[in-house]
């Protein structure tokens, strides 16, 4: 095992790896992230290797399982080098043809290449795909390129050079100054100046300090942190090591949700490899700096994404936040000065040190520098991860990068920042996506989760959904959050059930504003946002629910009815047999009838009917 105990050793090692890599060799890069695995990529990968073996090609063709490059909508994803042929939606049935035609003869298979849904144009090469060309992939660059379980891949692509620079060529204060100058702001949601935070922690007296990576990505719809840890874990390890040296910490923790087993696994491998190569642990890179990282797995509590609750969890306590000040930079884990940053923040550090603060700040807006990674989910064509410069307009993000709304439906609102965020309606589509501009609209950048909704989404139901999530996740320590969100949820449930009253909307606004101002932590401090913004921009929908007892989007169970269209009904009896409450009656081959008194609006009949004979009012 190569132990790298100097900058020179690292450079030599990288050159040796690059020398043994033939850029012209046939390689097949297969996305092996959780998303593609859920689409069957493991079976595809196994069959690919088997087929190559049988064809006698296993020696010449390298198969590289990679992390998630972000184009989740079209997974499983293949990229075949050196031509960079991009195949999407690859299934096991496609493997024989891929090996026989593309691998053996360089022939492109039409059914597997990307066809632009708008222009009809066929695009063969990965680099030309509009999904990628419209992005600015800095942090995500190596996702989809390297094998995340290979430190050699990371080093070959320039990994750990920044660490060498930070240790040997810069004083700790200079590292902090560079991070400050870059303008990097916390990518976990608060957007606090990272360099300033590091500075405050360094200034705090004490010999024992900690750095923590907050990988408790709990926002439903957000998975960028997961993909970074799955696809390029060394970027975070390197970032944390640089930070630890700058701040004066000797121990780090990565706190990661237990719902992310692959990320935990790949991170574990990365830590082990880094230690073996002298890049973590004792005498890092021969500089005499000792620092190591431990993984702590979460136990199913969204509130542990809040920094003081996270620290309590590491300490073995329940995830209850505590009052701040004092801030973690002064008194954090076990009372020691602690610097906590989000995964994306740490992953940016090696890039800043390697390319310089000016490079980082060359994109973005005046106050929001650099790039940001968003997860585009919901009613959007290109569901997946995208990295774009701060300040891009929401319209560009959704329509150019995201490909717009599928099914010809109209855009309704974009929820940014998960349960802590607000929704942005059509009239504000041109808002630049940056910290200040979104805050002015009542929303937040948050950790980057962006859920797109269309005309079939009920905004009142969406607000109710978020409050239900909040009620399950509130730690319950402080009165405003514990009881206030319960009051808000009950009001919303009544409204969605058709029992809204005069004054309900005003009550939600008043209560929401107070819960925000009076709660102990940022969970209570932000969870009224979805309610407040949906009321702000979709008040008419609320009023329809309360006064007209109607749900315009036809979602709220208490306000809709399912009906059989007799003319279309063939009497096949599928709906009647599957109705969980026996609300449907009808003879074979005779039109069926739904009894609205018994019907629970579960929607199963509507989902199962093969003849479009069931409508929703």
């Amino acid at each position, binding site marked *: 095992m190569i132990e790298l105990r100097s900058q020179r050793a690292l450079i030599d090692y990288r050159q040796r790896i690059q020398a043994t890599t033939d850029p012209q060799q046939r390689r097949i890069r297969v996305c092996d992230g*959780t*998303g593609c695995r*859920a689409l069957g990529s493991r079976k595809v990968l196994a069959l690919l290797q088997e087929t190559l073996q049988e064809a006698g090609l296993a020696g010449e063709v390298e198969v590289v399982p990679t992390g998630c490059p972000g184009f*989740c*909508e079209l997974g499983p994803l293949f990229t075949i080098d050196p031509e960079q042929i991009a195949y999407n939606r690859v299934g096991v049935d496609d493997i024989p043809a891929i090996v026989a035609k593309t691998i053996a003869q360089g022939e492109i298979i039409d059914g597997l290449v990307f066809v632009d849904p708008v222009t009809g144009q066929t695009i063969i090469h990965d680099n030309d795909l509009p999904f990628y060309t419209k992005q600015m992939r800095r942090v995500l660059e190596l996702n989809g390129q390297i094998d995340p379980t290979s430190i050699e891949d990371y080093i070959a692509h320039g990994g750990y050079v920044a660490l060498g620079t930070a240790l040997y060529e810069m004083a700790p204060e200079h590292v902090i100054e560079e991070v400050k100058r870059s303008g990097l702001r916390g990518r976990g949601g608060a957007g606090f100046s990272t360099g300033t935070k590091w500075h405050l922690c360094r200034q705090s007296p004490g010999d024992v300090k900690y750095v923590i990576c907050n990988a408790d990505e*709990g926002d439903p719809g957000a998975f960028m942190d997961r993909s970074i840890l799955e696809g390029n874990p060394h970027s975070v390890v390197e970032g944390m090591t640089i930070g630890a040296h700058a701040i004066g910490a000797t121990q780090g923790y990565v706190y990661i949700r237990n*719902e992310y087993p692959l990320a935990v696994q790949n991170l574990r491998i990365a830590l082990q490899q880094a230690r073996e190569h002298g890049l973590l642990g004792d005498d890092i890179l021969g500089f005499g700096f000792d620092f190591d990282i431990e993984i702590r797995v979460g136990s199913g509590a969204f509130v542990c994404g809040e920094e003081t609750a996270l620290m309590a*969890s590491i300490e073995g306590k329940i995830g209850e936040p505590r009052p701040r000040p004092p801030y973690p930079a002064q008194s954090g884990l076990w009372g020691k000065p602690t610097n906590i940053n989000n995964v994306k923040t740490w992953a940016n550090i090696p890039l800043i040190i390697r390319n310089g603060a000016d490079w980082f700040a060359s994109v973005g807006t005046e106050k929001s520098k650099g790039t940001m990674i968003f997860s585009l989910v*919901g009613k959007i064509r290109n569901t997946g991860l995208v990295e774009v410069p701060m300040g891009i307009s929401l319209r560009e993000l959704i329509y150019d990068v995201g490909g717009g709304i599928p099914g010809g439906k109209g855009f309704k609102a974009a929820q940014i920042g998960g349960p802590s965020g607000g929704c942005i309606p059509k009239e504000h589509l041109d808002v630049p996506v940056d910290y200040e501009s979104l805050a002015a609209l009542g929303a937040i950048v948050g950790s980057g989760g962006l859920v797109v909704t269309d005309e079939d989404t009920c905004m009142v139901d969406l607000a109710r959904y978020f409050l239900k999530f909040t009620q399950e996740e509130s730690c319950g320590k402080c009165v405003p959050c514990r009881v206030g969100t319960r009051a808000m949820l009950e009001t919303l449930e009544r409204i969605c059930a058709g029992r809204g009253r005069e004054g309900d909307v005003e009550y939600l606004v008043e209560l929401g504003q107070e819960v925000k101002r009076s709660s102990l932590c940022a969970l209570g401090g932000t969870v009224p946002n979805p309610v407040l913004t949906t009321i702000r921009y979709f008040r008419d929908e609320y009023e329809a629910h309360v006064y007209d007892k109607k749900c315009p989007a036809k979602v709220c169970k208490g306000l809709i009815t399912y009906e059989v269209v007799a003319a279309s009904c063939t009497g096949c009896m599928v709906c009647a047999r599957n109705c969980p409450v026996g609300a449907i009656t009808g003879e074979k081959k005779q039109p069926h009838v739904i009894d609205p008194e018994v019907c629970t609006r579960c929607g199963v009949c509507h989902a199962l009917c093969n003849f479009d004979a069931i409508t929703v009012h």
Partner: protein
Amino acid sequence: MDFEARELAETIEQNGADASLISILEEIQGRYRYLPQEAMILVSERLGVPLSQVYSVATFYHAFSLVPRGRHTISVCTGTACHVRGAVQVLNRLETGLGVRPGETTRDRQFTLETVNCLGCCALGPVVVLDGEYEGQMTTKKVDKLMKRSMHQAAGESDD
């Protein structure tokens, strides 16, 4: 895999000063499929933490269960993206099919139904995870197929 109380006691002591209460409880949850009362008492004694603290932690975090979970776990993602794509219908179908609500276990202790708030596979919503195997783009029909398959498998296992 054999797991003796003595071994548990030793594991706790071996972890030493850095012993993390939560990591130890996670291990016990993984092995026993729940946190037995006696195990919690043992942890309290051996780790040197008040029992009330152990119990507080055990009831706070949703990863821990005080009653045995089923041999198989079916998790439905109810994250925003999956919700918007119809996760509620998928969940309802499973509730009906298994006869339990989320958090509950079937009487034969075979299946536990759970909801999860976002697994990070939003492109494939709605997502269901059966014993660590992810199934994407679930529909009511696919749920029926999945349930049939897993109940058949479960019946086969208990015959051994």
